[in-house]
Structure formats: structure tokens, C-alpha cells
């Protein structure tokens, strides 16, 4: 038997061989039994043919008996056997012919017998009618005629031939039945012995092969049980550690859940504050826009002031020009007065009054020169102040320009702040939503961790069960190995 065959295949193969032998035996026995049954049927058939032939002869004899009785007595009740025989003869003849259809000789004989019987019946009928119509003597003469006897002899002879034929067939079939019975017996006995031997051989082969395989498997199971036991121990230890870790993870996740909720609350507050900040930024933007308009107004006013200051500077220059003229006039007057004083001094007493006038003129000129000098100083101060004012105004204008630019930048910054605050609001809302989702997810994770912890505990319990099972399996494999090795030895 092939070594690589499986357990089922080997057992199946062994049973298949045994079943095949049984099938051969059964088929052979069935055929023998069928032949025996056929022979038995043919024997019965032969007995039936012989019985019908006997019935045919008996019916014919009954008809002859009834005919004779009626002829003798002329009483109608003696015709009853005759009448019954007339009714049964046709059926019996038909039955005999049906039963002998398989035998052409018998069929031909029954066909030959039919007119003889009909003739004999006709003779009987003629005697009966003679008895009825004429007298006893006529009828007795007819009965006493040898024709009837000859016909009956022929009938008996034919039936005897047919019975002999059937008897010889019965003998043949009996021998065939005996032969079939002997063959069947031989098949059953020989097949049973062969099947028993074959079954013993196959069983021995299967037992030897399976003992080897089961022994090997049992040893494998034994070693595997040891490994499984070790693995179960490790699994139990790992499950306990995992359960501890799961507990820590559950605690951490609970803390994480609380933190997520705090973050969600903070994000919601940030969102609210960002919304308030956005409102403040919009108000600031409006305020900056107003400031920008005010700055533009200041810029226009500064331009007007600068224009006025420049005009004032021009007027101051014009005043300076006039002062130059006045100063030159005063200077010339002073020179004139001095020269007049010189001339008056040169004129002696006559020029004294002229000298006085010259002095007064000179004093006036000095006064005008001094005033002119003061006015020039004032004009210079005014021009300096105008220049300073213009410069300061220009600086202020530049400062206003810078301030305007800064206001524009501030407006831009406020818009950016509003936009960024909007973005911050959206981000805070997204954070809030994400954190809520995260909290939900953490809750789910917590549930999953709890389930996992339960599964871990179940795993630990399962590991214990596996350990017990491995121990039992080891013991079972040991016992199985002992059984197999004991049987093998």
C-alpha cells in the first residue's frame, strides 16, 4: 500500500478491495442464484405443463365418463361431467399450448392433438345425441365402436409423449439446477473464504501502515503538545502583560479623552474670542478709515498752511525789500545829515541852526535806521519762523504722509487681522469639531480598548484552556503512542 496515501484513502482503499471482492462474490452468487431460480422456474413450468396435460387427459376422461353415464342412464345429470369437460378442455388446451410455446416439438404435438380431441368429442357428442334421439343401442353401438377407443389411445399416446418430453426436460433442468446450486455454493464458499483472506490481508496492511502513521503522528502530536503547552504558557503570560498594558492604555485614553474635551472647550472659547476679535478688528478698520479721512483732511490743511506760510515768506521778502529801501533811505539821510552837520560846522555861527536841524534829521535817520534794523530783525525772525514753520509744516506734511501710509498700512493690517482672525475662527472651529470628533473617536477607542481588555482576559482564559488541552493532548498522544507501539510490537 502506498506510503503517501492518507488515512482515509488507505482505509477507503482497503474497504474498496474488500467491497470489490464482495461485489465479485455477490455478482457471481447472484448469477448462480438467478440461474438456480430460472431452473426452478423451468422445473415448475415443466411440472405445470405436466399437470395441465394430466388435467387435459382427466377432463377428456370425465367427458367420456359423463357420455357413458348418459348413454347408459339417459339421465341429464350424468352429462354434467361432460359439459364441464367441454368448457374446460378449450382452456386447458389453450393453456398447454401457451405453456409450450417455447418448445416447437410440444407446440406441434398439441396442434396435432387438437383435431384428435375434437374428433373424440364429436364421437361423444354423436353418441349422446343418438341416445337422446333414438335409443340406447344406437348410442351403445357408437360407444362400443372402436373409433372412440382408438382416438383415446392416440390422445393418451400423444399426452404420454408430451409428458415424456416434459419429464426428460425436467430431468435436464433438475441437473442444471443441481449444477447451478453446486456452482453457487462453490462461489459463496470460495468467495467468502477469499474475501475473508483478502480482508485479513488488507486489514493487516492497513493496520501496519496506520500504526506507523498514527505512531508518527502521535509522536508529532506529543512534541507539538509540548510546544503548544509552552506557547500556551507564553500566551498566557503575554495575555496577562497585555491585560496590564490595556489597563494602562485605558487609563491613558481616559486622560486623553478628558484632555480632548478640555481642548474642545478651549477651541470653542478661542473661536468665541476670535469672533469678538474679528468684530473689534472690523471696528478698528472703520476707525482707521475715519482716521485716514481725518489724516487726509489734516494733509489738505497742512498744504493750505504751507501755502500760507510760503505766501507769508514771500510777503516777508517783500517787506525786506521795502526795508532795504527804507534802510538805504535812512542811511542816505544819515549821510546827508552828517554831511549837513559838517557843512554847518564849517559855516560857523550862521550854520548853527542848520546844524541843529541836521542833528534832528540825523537823529531821525538814526532812529529810522535803528527801527529799520529792528524791523529787519523782526522780519528776519518772521522769515526764520516762516522757514521753520514751513520746514516744520513740511516735516508735518511728511509726517502726515508717513502717518497716512501708516494708517493705510494699519487699515491693511486690520483687514489682514480681520481675515486672519476669520481664518483663526475657522481653524478654531475646525479644531473644535476635530477635537470633538477626536473625543468621540477616543471614546470609541476606549470602548474598543475595554473590549480588547476583555478579549485579552478571554485570551488569557483561553490560553489556560489551551494549556489544559495541550496537557490532555500530550497525555492522550502518550497513551495513543503506547497503544500504537504496543500493537506495532
Amino acid at each position: 500500500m502506498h506510503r503517501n496515501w492518507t488515512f482515509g484513502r488507505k482505509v477507503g482503499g482497503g474497504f474498496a478491495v474488500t467491497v470489490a471482492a464482495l461485489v465479485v462474490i455477490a455478482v457471481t452468487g447472484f448469477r448462480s442464484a438467478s440461474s438456480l431460480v430460472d431452473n426452478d422456474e423451468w422445473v415448475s413450468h415443466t411440472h405445470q405443463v405436466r399437470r395441465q396435460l394430466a388435467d387435459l387427459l382427466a377432463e377428456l376422461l370425465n367427458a367420456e365418463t359423463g357420455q357413458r353415464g348418459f348413454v347408459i342412464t339417459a339421465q341429464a345429470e350424468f352429462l354434467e361431467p361432460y359439459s364441464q369437460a367441454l368448457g374446460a378442455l378449450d382452456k386447458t388446451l389453450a393453456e398447454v399450448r401457451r405453456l409450450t410455446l417455447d418448445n416447437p416439438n410440444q407446440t406441434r404435438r398439441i396442434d396435432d392433438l387438437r383435431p384428435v380431441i375434437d374428433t373424440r368429442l364429436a364421437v361423444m357428442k354423436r353418441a349422446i345425441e343418438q341416445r337422446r334421439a333414438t335409443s340406447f343401442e344406437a348410442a351403445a353401438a357408437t360407444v362400443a365402436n372402436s373409433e372412440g377407443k382408438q382416438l383415446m389411445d392416440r390422445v393418451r399416446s400423444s399426452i404420454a409423449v408430451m409428458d415424456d418430453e416434459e419429464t426428460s426436460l425436467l430431468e435436464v433442468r433438475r441437473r442444471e439446477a443441481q449444477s447451478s446450486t453446486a456452482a453457487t455454493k462453490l462461489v459463496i464458499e470460495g468467495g467468502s473464504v477469499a474475501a475473508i483472506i483478502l480482508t485479513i490481508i488488507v486489514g493487516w496492511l492497513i493496520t501496519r501502515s496506520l500504526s506507523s502513521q498514527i505512531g508518527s503522528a502521535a509522536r508529532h502530536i506529543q512534541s507539538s503538545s509540548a510546544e503548544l503547552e509552552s506557547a500556551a504558557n507564553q500566551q498566557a503570560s503575554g495575555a496577562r502583560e497585555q491585560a496590564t498594558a490595556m489597563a494602562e492604555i485605558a487609563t491613558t485614553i481616559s486622560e486623553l479623552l478628558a484632555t480632548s474635551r478640555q481642548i474642545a472647550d478651549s477651541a470653542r472659547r478661542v473661536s468665541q474670542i476670535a469672533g469678538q476679535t474679528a468684530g473689534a478688528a472690523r471696528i478698528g478698520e472703520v476707525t482707521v478709515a475715519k482716521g485716514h479721512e481725518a489724516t487726509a483732511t489734516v494733509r489738505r490743511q497742512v498744504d493750505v498752511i504751507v501755502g500760507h506760510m510760503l505766501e507769508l515768506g514771500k510777503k516777508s521778502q517783500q517787506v525786506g525789500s521795502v526795508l532795504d529801501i527804507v534802510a538805504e533811505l535812512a542811511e542816505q539821510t544819515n549821510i546827508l545829515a552828517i554831511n549837513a552837520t559838517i557843512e554847518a560846522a564849517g559855516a560857523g555861527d550862521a550854520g548853527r541852526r542848520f546844524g541843529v536841524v541836521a542833528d534832528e534829521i540825523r537823529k531821525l535817520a538814526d532812529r529810522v535806521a535803528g527801527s529799520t534794523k529792528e524791523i529787519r530783525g523782526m522780519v528776519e525772525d518772521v522769515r526764520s519762523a516762516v522757514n521753520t514753520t514751513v520746514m516744520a509744516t513740511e516735516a508735518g506734511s511728511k509726517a502726515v504722509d508717513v502717518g497716512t501710509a501708516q494708517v493705510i498700512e494699519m487699515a491693511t493690517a486690520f483687514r489682514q487681522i480681520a481675515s486672519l482672525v476669520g481664518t483663526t475662527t475657522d481653524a478654531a472651529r475646525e479644531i473644535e469639531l476635530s477635537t470633538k470628533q477626536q473625543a468621540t473617536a477616543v471614546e470609541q477607542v476606549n470602548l474598543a480598548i475595554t473590549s480588547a481588555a476583555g478579549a485579552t482576559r478571554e485570551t488569557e482564559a483561553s490560553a489556560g484552556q489551551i494549556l489544559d488541552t495541550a496537557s490532555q493532548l500530550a497525555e492522550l498522544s502518550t497513551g495513543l503512542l503506547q497503544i500504537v507501539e504496543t500493537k506495532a510490537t
Partner: protein
Amino acid sequence: MFTLGELFDAGFAAAPLPPPPAHRDFLCIRIGGEPSAIPLADIASLHTGLRVVALPTRAPELLGVAAIRATVVAIYDLGAALGIPGAGAPRWTAVVRGRPAGFAFAGFEGHARIPDRSIAVATQHGHVRGQFSLDGQARAIVDLGSVLTALEHRWHSATAKDR
């Protein structure tokens, strides 16, 4: 505070003043930043903005000549004549009385009438005749005649050497 017209009118409305005490009139000038004074009695006239025509000369003090009242007058730089450097561009010109010459100077501060008692007359020291104090500031009295004489003497000496 009186207006100029009121002062002018007041000056002519007032009675004639008694003769002033003995005094002297001066032109207050600045030569190279130094406050100085020229006696008014030493000059014939005072001018400004004269057109001075330069002459080819070896005297550095001589600025040129100018026409004053139909008279050709030699114009000298007073600061250069006194040997004071950095006296500045002369604008004013004082014509020396009785002489066809004038001295130009840069700074003219005005007219001053100084009582004689306030004038400290010193012995001739160079071209300074004396000094007086005005507004707390001492002014040297420059003798233009002396300066002119010195220039003429130097001029003559140079001419004599050339000859």
C-alpha cells in the same frame, strides 16, 4: 511810545536848546573789527557807494580815484593804511577836510557827539590821537591827516628812491 512823526514834530516844536556843553563830533567806525572813531572836524564829507577808478600804482593802500563834487579825490584803504589786516571790502568813504584824498572803510556805525571831558587826549601815538568810551566800549580816535601825511611821506620817499 511815540511815533516817528510825533518825535519829528516834537523836535521842531520844542524851544531852541541852550548851547550844548563843549563837545566834539565823531564818526564811529570799525577797522578790522576794532571800534574806532574819526573826528567829524577832520573830514569834508562822507560818502557811500562811490565809484572808485583804480589806477596802476605800487601803493597797495591806494584804491584809485573818485570824482566828488567836481574834484578828483584819491581814495585810500584806511585799514591797509593803518596796517590792520582783514579790514574787509571798504564801502564807506570819508574825504579828508582840505585835502584831495579820502579813506575808505568797511564798517560805519554812526555819528557820536562826545563831550570834551569824556575824551582822553593822548600824545600822538602812531595815528591815534586819543580815545573815548561809548556804550562801555573804548574807541580809538584815528587822525586821518596823520595817516595821509604818512602815506604821502612814504610815497615821496619811494619816488625819491626811484629817481
